[in-house]
């Protein structure tokens, strides 16, 4: 009896190994190569692979709710049109993905709902590699983002506390993502950053990897395997004639959200499709 059980287990192990080997083949056969050649910080310190269905893991994420009025910035400082909730129809984890869904509906006097997740107070870090694999929605008015905020905005209001936008996109420019920094002397329309444009591809039809490597004296931006921008204290000096201040020297926290309308994308039009979902495959943070 014992012998038989042992035998079974050995075969089961073999079966398991083959199963995972074939899974690996499946994954490697169809997906683009995720290996980062532009990123060099490889000590993983925090991640969410969204492996458990249901509400996002409350030990990693909290929600910003409402329209920003409670935070003293109605429209989240940008005249955005959505009301953020933590309802499952706006934010949930399914099949290994975080889903942030923007809907057109009457809710608390607003016409759109969506969600905004942050790691504020749960995970905050200065420097490192921050990376996520994301598919964005499309259409005029959509404004998905993966970004970092300085953790002292309560005492040192934006833009003084700093903002690092790893990925922003406006839905009517489906081939373009942009990365930028905001701080004292360079914020809003005068932020410092750069567009990254895909050729023969779009950001709403498949997943792409968006990341930064952030060290005391530079922030490198990459999309998939392309390093497309480096921002340094010297750049801030040059762009702001010495008026700007490098504030990227303290812990920041992660934010994922889908805004609707607002100053940057403008309002949705009658061609904009609702609802739509931003899918996040993973968020990972590494140290040097």
């Amino acid at each position, binding site marked *: 009896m014992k012998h038989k059980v042992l035998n079974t287990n050995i*075969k*089961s192990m073999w079966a398991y190994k083959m*199963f995972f080997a074939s899974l690996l083949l*499946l994954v490697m056969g169809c997906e683009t190569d995720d290996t980062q050649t532009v990123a060099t910080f490889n000590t993983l310190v925090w991640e969410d692979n969204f492996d458990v269905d249901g509400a996002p893991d409350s030990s990693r994420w909290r929600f910003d709710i409402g329209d920003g009025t409670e935070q003293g910035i109605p429209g989240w400082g940008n005249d955005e049109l959505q009301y953020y909730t933590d309802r499952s129809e706006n934010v949930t984890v399914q099949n290994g993905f975080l889903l942030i869904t923007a809907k057109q509906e009457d809710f608390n006097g607003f016409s759109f709902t969506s969600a905004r997740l942050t790691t504020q107070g749960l995970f905050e870090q200065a420097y490192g590699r921050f990376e996520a694999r994301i598919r964005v929605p499309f259409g005029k008015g959509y404004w998905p983002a993966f970004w970092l905020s300085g953790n002292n905005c309560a005492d040192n209001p934006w833009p003084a506390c700093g903002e690092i936008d790893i990925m922003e996109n406006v839905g009517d420019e*489906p*081939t373009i993502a942009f990365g930028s920094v905001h701080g004292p002397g360079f914020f809003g329309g005068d932020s410092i950053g750069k567009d990254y444009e895909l050729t*023969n591809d*779009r950001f709403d*039809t498949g997943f792409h990897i968006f990341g930064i490597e952030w060290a005391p004296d530079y922030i490198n931006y990459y999309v998939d395997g392309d390093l497309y921008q480096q921002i340094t204290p010297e750049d801030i000096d040059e762009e702001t004639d010495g008026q700007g201040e490098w504030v990227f020297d303290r812990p920041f926290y992660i934010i994922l959200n889908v805004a609707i309308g607002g100053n940057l994308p403008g309002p949705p039009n009658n061609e904009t499709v609702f609802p739509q979902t931003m899918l996040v495959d993973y968020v990972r943070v590494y140290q040097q």
Partner: protein
Amino acid sequence: MKIYRYIHLRFIPLLGLGIVALLSCERDFSDEVKFATFPANGDIFTDAPVGLTDKFFDSFDPAVGANTEGFGTDDDVAFEGTSSIRIDVPAPDDPNGGFIGGIFLDRGAGRDLTGFDALTFYVKGSTTATIDEVGFGSDFEEDKFAVGLQNIRLSTDWKKVIIPIPDPSKLVQERGMFRFSAGTLSTNGVGFTFWIDELQFENLGTIAQSRPSILGGNDSRFPTTVGQTVTISQLQQTFNLGSGIDQTINLTPSYFSFKSSDPNVAFVDELGEVTVAGTGLTEITASIAGVLADGKLLVESSESAQIVSIFTDLFADIPVDNYNGFFLGQNTKGGLVEENGGQIIRYTQLDFVSINFFQNVAPIDITEMTDLRISIRVDESIDAGDFINIQLVNSVGTPDLTSGTFRIEGGDLVPNEWVEFQIPLSSFTGLGARNAIGQLFFVSDGTISNVSIDNIFFSAE
């Protein structure tokens, strides 16, 4: 139990490997099966025609007014290289023909276009006129996989036009490389010239977010009887281009897969023709490359169903005098307009208006009918107290005149959305005989100014 588990685990790797084999990214056929393939050349015109028939331009029939003289090439104008296609659009009274249009055919047996996602070209005009239509997939034989993009606004500088391919996997052997049609509707009859260059099929990689639709994206209910046929119309597909702009094309039924939820009631062929085979209910839906189209046809087949169609896309309408008689003292503007590849009636400044069918056409006898069916979309917000009265008038202009009204309250309508009504004729208060109905009125007294109307017919249940 353990043995069962053991077998179960052994199957997983086999299953996994099976999935790898089936889902590996390239969808190659196995070595044993060799399909004939056709040239995969996407070029149509660069500085000269590429692989087209000696005729190059195959005009529409001159007997219907197509001008065969206005087509040529121009060695003085080019977006790239040394030459372009030059098209001189004639005035309507040109003795050689009042419009110009035709097709370019592949000189061989056809091309394999499965590796492309769009037909593209650069165009510029002598003036900012509008080209009526451009497209591909027309061979003057089957026109099986034809696609058209309408109303291309010209600029006096070069601009790129992108016509998405609805489902490239269908185009394994296509001869129809290009089609265009141009008249002077947009220039009030003044002729103009436009140039086309770098005409080619391309794989842009940015043609995305396919949204097919049938029947204008609406759900249409149609009562019918066994033996009747109707053809699914208003076939369209919207893509989002790399520029972020939505592009809507018209296309032929063969790009769609049609499905009937109950083929015993009605079945659909690949040309979108629905044949009613039995009594009951069935739902006809369509899809392109796995994407379900907006809009569906609900077939309600019974022994006794009859219809009299005033204004539908699917059935033969009765002749009418007009859709807006412009009475004295009436402010309503509007009438027929195009929408989503079909026609609807759209009124603005509505106070009252009527569809008339009694002056130069015969009024209709709907004694046997039981219901009026009508779809109404209010093209504005709806306020308290808004209404639309629908009035039927029998024996117009005679001493026997009788009329009846049914009131639709604003609360039963939805702003900017179609609402379908089925109104028993017995609810038209005051209507006596209905053997000679000649007018259908819409009266809002200005409470609702902008409204669209579609699918008006009488049915017997």
